[in-house]
């Protein structure tokens, strides 16, 4: 059995046959996962300094030089790193007194932080499979982003108290701005909202649960939804980027709705995170500092939106990006800013970010070429071993060697 680190579901029932480094046949791997396995032979990163090829030792010592000389350093990424590498990264940030951040600062960090702090109820995917009778996908389209989400955990499978699975025992509700593939599966459970209408929908639903008539077009449907949620025995809300981006930094309407739902019944929240170990980084940094992202070690421990990548890029003079591709993900003005800053990129593959970097250091793909452990998006720890031999260094070793070089 092999593992897949293609997304944050960390599927563990994969069968794969290799022919050398080439993947011959895979079983149970979704299309995204298959592409992840196939990518082992495509577009791999080579060590380079200033655009010309270098040995890995040279690249690491140059990276050490660059980081040590920086006044205001940002360590960014970490979603595609193993738990050990993330801990080493936090150690490096402490040693250098730098800022450390990950993509959750502009996505679902707020939700994860509330869950880790115990303010927002959450549960594991196994609980969902065994007990959940209502699955709400809010601004979330796992059919496209995490293909096996619905079939492994959230809707189709049979569980201890849900023996009849999706046919009778489970209900899927999708709240989204478009009829996504997930919404097509939910059919009647799809609620279409206008872009940016999430807070309004949450307030209308809150009013419905409070026994008032909601101020929406289709009142009857909303009242039916309210009744359904009231009767739910174990509800789960899967949140996606749609919810986080639509509400910006103000998710209060959503949090108070979850609070209200928990007065009436039991509802948990599980964020659907993109990178395979975003949850792991959030947990590691939370254990260390009490915040999940945007932390500065410059003067003790400080946390705030000014230390998120979106704001901090203005003032920083060096960046190290580990296992992420901010040049592809951020809006154009920030990308422009980022590409002008001296950058060290640590990644398994060539990306737009590594193209813009001064120093590039390749690593092995976790779960395929190197072992390690990670946290699934629901917070369950998964340990994996390498399934194919390779000469690439594990990410933790690279970070530790950079630390020595500094």
């Amino acid at each position, binding site marked *: 059995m092999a593992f897949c680190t293609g997304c944050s579901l960390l599927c563990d029932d994969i069968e794969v046959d290799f022919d050398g480094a080439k993947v011959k046949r*895979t*079983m*149970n791997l979704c299309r*995204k996962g*298959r592409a992840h396995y196939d990518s082992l032979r495509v577009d791999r990163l080579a060590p380079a300094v200033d655009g010309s090829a270098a040995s890995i030792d040279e690249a690491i010592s140059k990276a050490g030089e660059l980081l040590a000389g920086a006044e205001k350093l940002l360590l960014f990424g970490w979603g595609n790193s193993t738990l050990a590498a993330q801990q080493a990264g936090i150690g490096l940030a402490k040693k250098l007194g730098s800022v450390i951040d990950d993509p959750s600062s502009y996505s679902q960090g707020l939700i994860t932080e509330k869950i880790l702090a115990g303010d927002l109820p959450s549960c594991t995917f196994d609980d969902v499979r065994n007990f959940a009778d209502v699955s709400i996908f809010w601004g979330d389209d796992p*059919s496209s982003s995490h293909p096996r989400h619905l079939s492994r955990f959230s809707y*189709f*499978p049979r569980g201890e108290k849900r023996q009849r*699975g999706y046919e009778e025992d489970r209900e899927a509700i999708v709240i989204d701005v478009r009829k996504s593939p997930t919404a097509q599966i939910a059919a009647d459970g799809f609620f279409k909202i206008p872009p940016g209408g999430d807070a309004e929908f949450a307030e209308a639903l809150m009013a419905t649960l409070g026994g008032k008539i909601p101020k929406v077009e289709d009142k009857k449907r909303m009242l039916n939804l309210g009744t359904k949620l009231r009767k739910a025995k174990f509800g789960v809300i899967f949140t996606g980027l749609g919810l986080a981006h639509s509400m910006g930094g103000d998710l209060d309407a959503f949090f108070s709705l979850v609070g209200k739902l928990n007065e009436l019944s039991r509802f948990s929240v599980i964020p659907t995170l993109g990178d395979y170990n975003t949850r792991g980084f959030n947990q590691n940094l939370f254990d260390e500092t009490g915040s999940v992202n945007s932390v500065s070690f410059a003067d003790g421990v400080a946390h705030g939106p000014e230390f998120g990548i979106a704001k901090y890029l203005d003032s920083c003079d060096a960046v190290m990006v580990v296992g992420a591709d901010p040049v592809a993900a951020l809006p154009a003005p920030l990308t422009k800013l980022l590409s002008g800053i001296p950058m060290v990129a640590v990644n398994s593959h060539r990306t737009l970010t590594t193209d813009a970097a001064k120093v590039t250091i390749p690593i092995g793909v976790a779960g395929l070429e190197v072992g390690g452990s990670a946290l699934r998006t629901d917070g369950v720890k998964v340990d994996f071993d390498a399934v194919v031999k390779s000469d690439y260094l594990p990410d933790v070793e690279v970070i530790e060697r950079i630390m020595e070089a500094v």
Partner: protein
Amino acid sequence: MVSVMEVYQLLPKTNCKKCGLPTCMAFAVELLGKRKAIEDCTPLVEEPKYEKKLAGLRELMAPILSADATETGMVIHPEKCYGCGNCVVACPVNVANDPKGTAIGRGPVSRKAILVVEDGVVKCVNLDECRRFGPNKVLCNACIVTCPSKAIEFI
């Protein structure tokens, strides 16, 4: 999915009985069940006035008679499939045959599963276990309605 009426409309509708069946409607049913061939309807093939109907019928029947279609009429479009495995987990036969695998959302551990995800896309094996197979078939559609990308259809 092709209906009997669509096939019937493209037959001569003379009930000539040359195919050995009492009516053209009966022939349409047999044709759709692949128990008769288009050539068994001799007037349709031989008489020039039915030329258009014959061409239409061949076009209509092409996907059903093609090698892509399995005996239950299931066609999988691999280019549309995400490999999500919804159909694998939803298939009632998979669930009954594989309680420790597909029934609880994991990959199949039993050799009797009908649908499996191989190389990132769904594949049909053990066709004879399908509820649509054989004379006592049930018109089950669990694998179609659960597909987010419409990669499975029955013809």
